[in-house]
């Protein structure tokens, strides 16, 4: 099928593709080496490249170099602009742009006024946010091109789940202006899931995954039903208050006060733009160091009034002063699970993605709200975790390599709603087995929220052999709560109560006795209506029965059962209602 003149991207055979994550704070580029995604370091050696452009004497700087100019050249530095693409001025939140070039209204879009040319007499330019994005993307592409030694032509780029069509179109256009073909925009949480699923040791299973995308200016949580390697987003929540910069702020306030305490009479470094910028840069560095070590130093030359300042902080102290932010993140994750109509007991994995996910306390706190069996995939809680700062770019690179040989038109067709929007079964479909007590129990074969068509196969034991019944039923779960045995009330010994450190005088319920007598919550399957019965006769002793359930796109069901290693078997069909 050739549709002449539709799109003018490169021929599939002429593409060089990469994956890009383009954040408000940082961006990354990745590509595949021997089927393994690798995040590329730019010419400065950075894999997390600050999403910042800065102009000094007509010279363009990007990434970490541009970030450093936030101290000396903030007015010609553009930062935190990704979320402005495709938006009108009145719809943006300029909070994070106070310390750099200010966004302004310009027609339907947002722009920045920057002196981007050399010479005193040159006037400043008004750059639309799309132009800023184009210039920045051009730098990313050229870094990748230099690294690969081949001109990068095409990319898969990750976007937040709440990007609307206008924002998507603006991003694609900004990339096109940078001579970059966007093969596909994929959502950030799904890129993270793909990065994990593509590991050679990964098993494709039906599971519910919570992806917490914790960045600098925003935290986004998605609940994803992962079914046979296909992903459906069940719910998303977004927050712009509890994210990395809020943690920076906590440390900035801490060290500013510390500075003033140790230098009586000195000015508040937060009251001068330049001092504030220094404070911010160093606070962020200290914060990152606290993800690795139990202590971190903070040191700024001439923090205020020409006074140098050096101090340290330990992790415990940091975790105390940052508690409100950490608790906000916990609530955000809990609200996402709730919005999906699920319980924490339904969640099999929590993937922590984004720079802030390096914070050990955040991972530990999430571990506490989910049951023991839920895997918390973060560096602090799982040694096999992938670097959270690399998940999105890796996922994008994997997707790019999967589709790079397709014609643009084929990609469009495959991502069209006619292909992607399909029925998902609401209930589980499974078979009846007998538990140790000989009671009937539901064994799920097809999990709820599985997209159809779907086929699942299980091997069920038939230890006694003979004639067995395969009863196919629907099922769903409920949470069974067992109240604790009322126990004899012990006398609360006042002496055992330890006074807390200075700033946490309110009662911390985590440490109260109530914890021990917590009610027990478990997820149990309930047997629903019967769909079919099948008989398999003459199974040999110690045999196994393979049951396969296929649900069609019209919700018809095909059941097959046969003895594993045996011949024949039964097959039946349920037509759709």
């Amino acid at each position: 099928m050739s549709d002449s003149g539709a799109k003018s991207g490169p021929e599939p055979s002429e593409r060089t593709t990469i994956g890009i994550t383009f954040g408000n704070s940082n961006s990354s580029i990745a590509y595949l080496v021997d089927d393994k995604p690798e995040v590329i370091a730019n010419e400065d050696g950075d894999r997390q490249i600050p999403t910042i452009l800065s102009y000094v004497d007509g010279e363009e700087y990007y990434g970490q170099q541009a970030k450093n100019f936030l101290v000396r050249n903030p007015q010609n530095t553009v930062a935190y602009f990704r979320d402005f693409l495709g938006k009108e001025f009145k719809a943006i939140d300029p909070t994070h742009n106070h310390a750099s070039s200010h966004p302004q209204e310009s027609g339907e879009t947002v722009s920045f006024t920057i002196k981007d040319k050399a010479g005193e007499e040159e006037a400043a330019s008004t750059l639309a946010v799309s132009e800023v994005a184009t210039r920045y993307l051009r730098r990313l592409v050229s870094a990748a091109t230099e690294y690969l030694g081949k001109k990068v032509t095409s990319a898969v780029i990750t976007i937040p789940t709440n990007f609307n069509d206008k924002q998507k179109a603006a991003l694609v256009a900004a990339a096109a202006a940078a001579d970059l073909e966007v093969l596909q925009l994929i959502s950030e949480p799904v890129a993270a899931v793909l990065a994990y699923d593509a590991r050679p040791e990964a098993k494709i299973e039906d599971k519910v995954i919570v992806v917490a995308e914790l960045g600098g200016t925003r935290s986004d949580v998605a609940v994803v039903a992962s079914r046979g390697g296909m992903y459906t987003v069940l719910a998303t929540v977004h927050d712009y208050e509890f994210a990395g910069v809020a943690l920076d702020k906590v440390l900035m306030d801490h060290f500013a006060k510390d500075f003033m305490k140790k230098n009586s009479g000195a000015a508040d470094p937060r009251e001068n733009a330049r001092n504030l910028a220094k404070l911010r840069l160093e606070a962020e560095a200290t914060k990152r160091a606290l993800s690795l070590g139990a202590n971190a130093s903070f040191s700024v030359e001439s923090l205020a009034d020409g006074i140098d300042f050096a101090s340290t902080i330990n992790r415990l102290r940091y975790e105390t002063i940052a508690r409100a932010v950490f608790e906000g993140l916990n609530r955000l994750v809990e609200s996402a699970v709730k919005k999906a109509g699920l319980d924490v007991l339904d969640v099999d994995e929590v993937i922590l993605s984004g720079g802030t996910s390096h914070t050990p306390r955040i991972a530990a706190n999430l571990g506490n709200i989910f049951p023991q069996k839920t895997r918390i995939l973060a560096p602090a809680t799982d040694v096999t975790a992938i670097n959270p700062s690399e998940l999105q770019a890796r996922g994008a690179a994997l997707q790019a390599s999967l589709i790079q040989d397709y014609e643009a038109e084929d990609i469009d067709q495959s991502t069209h709603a006619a292909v992607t929007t399909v029925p998902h079964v609401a209930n589980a479909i499974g078979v009846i087995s007998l538990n140790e007590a000989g009671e009937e129990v539901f064994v799920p074969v097809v999990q709820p929220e599985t997209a159809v068509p779907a086929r699942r196969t299980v091997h069920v034991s038939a230890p006694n052999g003979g004639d067995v019944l395969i009863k196919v039923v629907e099922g769903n779960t409920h949470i069974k709560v067992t109240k604790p045995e009322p126990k004899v009330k012990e006398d609360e010994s006042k002496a055992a109560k330890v006074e807390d450190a200075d700033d946490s005088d309110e009662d911390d319920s985590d440490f109260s006795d109530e914890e021990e007598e917590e009610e027990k919550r478990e997820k149990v399957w309930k047997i629903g209506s019967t769909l079919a019965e099948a008989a398999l006769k003459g199974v040999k002793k110690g045999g196994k029965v393979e049951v396969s359930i296929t649900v069609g796109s019209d919700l018809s069901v095909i059941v097959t059962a046969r003895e594993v290693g045996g011949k024949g078997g039964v097959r039946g069909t349920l037509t759709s209602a």
Partner: protein
Amino acid sequence: MEATVIPLPLPALPEGWEAENNFKAIGKITQEGATQRTLEPVGPYFLAHARRARHKRTFSEDDR
């Protein structure tokens, strides 16, 4: 996907159970039993799904 192994045994066939071809169709999945949702068009398994959908192929045809 690999078959999951279930250690709990299947019940024995009740005395007198009989059906043509050893199969009794009893219920069905109703439209209310399903929700329209959107699959993320990402990953190798989705691409296989899209291929089957676009060429109107079944799983077994796809296996061949």
